[in-house]
Every structure is written in C-alpha cells, then in structure tokens.
C-alpha cells in the first residue's frame, strides 16, 4: 500500500472524466439521431472510448497503489471487444430482416437473391 503520487491522481481523474463525457455524448446521439442504422453508431463511442478510459484508469490506479502490475480491468475491455460486435451485427441483421418483412421503401435489396428467407415479402 504505497501513497499515490500526484500525477497519477491527475491522470486517473482525467481518464474518468473523459470516459463520462464520451458516454454522455453517445447517449445524446442515441436519443437524437433519426434512424435505427444511424443510431447504431454513437454507442460505439461509449463501447470503445468509455470502457478503455475506465480500464486504463483502473490499471494505473491499482498498479501504483499495490506496487505491482494489476492488469485485471483489461479483461473487461477484451471481453467487450469480443461480445459487442456480435450483438451489434445480430441487431443490424434483425433491423434489416424486419424492414424487408415490413416492405419499407428505403431498405437496400439483398446482395444474393434467394439466400435470405423474407426477400419476396
């Protein structure tokens, strides 16, 4: 348990503040953009910058405090970088599927006809 030097405190505080600002910006974007495919973009800001800033702050803070390399907050970032693209691609496919099923006019046609079930609807 070592005392924490001043510059580490300032860096950790700056990382936490920037993470909060990024998450807030992404939430405003999610609320205000007009279309679902447009709304999928701003949360990427939170998923990348938000989690990376908090994880770096945690790594720095716990490493200095316990005088050893504490890399465990990085696990969260690694896990999120594997799961978030899966969820996002699944939801994008859901939106595309449901728009084609509903017959929306601005939906792009499928690339290879016949492969996806609801194309004739």
């Amino acid at each position, binding site marked *: 348990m070592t005392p924490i030097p001043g510059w580490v*405190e300032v860096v950790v*505080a700056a990382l936490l503040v920037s993470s909060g600002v990024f998450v*807030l910006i992404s939430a405003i974007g*999610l609320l205000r953009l007009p279309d679902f495919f447009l709304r999928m973009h701003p*949360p990427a800001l*939170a998923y990348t910058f938000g989690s990376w800033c908090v994880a770096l702050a945690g790594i720095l803070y716990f490493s200095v405090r316990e005088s050893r390399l504490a890399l465990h907050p990085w696990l969260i970032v690694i896990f999120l970088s594997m799961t978030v693209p899966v969820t996002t691609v699944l*939801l994008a496919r859901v939106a595309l599927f449901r728009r084609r099923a509903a017959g929306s006019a601005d939906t792009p046609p499928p690339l290879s006809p016949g492969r996806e079930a609801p194309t004739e609807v």
Partner: protein
Amino acid sequence: MSIWISSAAAFAVGCYALASVLVLVRLIKGPRAQDRVFALDLLYFHALLVLLVLGIRHENDTYFEAALLIALFGFVSSSAMAKFILRGEVIE
C-alpha cells in the same frame, strides 16, 4: 482517497446516470423492438462502467467481478433477444 479522484469519480457516475436516463427514454420511446434491445444492451454497459468506477473510488477489487458478470449477462441476454426477434425462437 484524494479529492481529484473522488470528484472525478462522482462526475463520471453522474454522467453515466444522465446517459442512462437518456437511453431509458429511447428504450421507452423506441419505435421498434430492435431499438429497445439495443437500448437495454447499452444500459447493461452503463451499469458495468458504474461498477468499475465505484471499484476505483472505494479502492476495492470486488466490484470488478460484479462488472465482469454484468458484461456476461448483458451479452447473453441481448444476443438471445436479438435471436428471438430474428427467428421467433432462441434455440432452433
């Protein structure tokens, strides 16, 4: 605990709370089901960030395991819901 880190943690948690309220508005308002699933996934992510920041704020490692569990449950639940909307059943 220095005043720098505690005030920055309070600011970050306040930002997450405000962002969660905005995402909740999208979840209630969302025109179709995929908007709601996406907003719920983002709410899970905000809870994870709150736990990580509280772990730094209270100098406690136990918050980290809870954050990891929330990340796991968020992934499982939102992918299961997306699969359900896509096909009408979770496991075919």
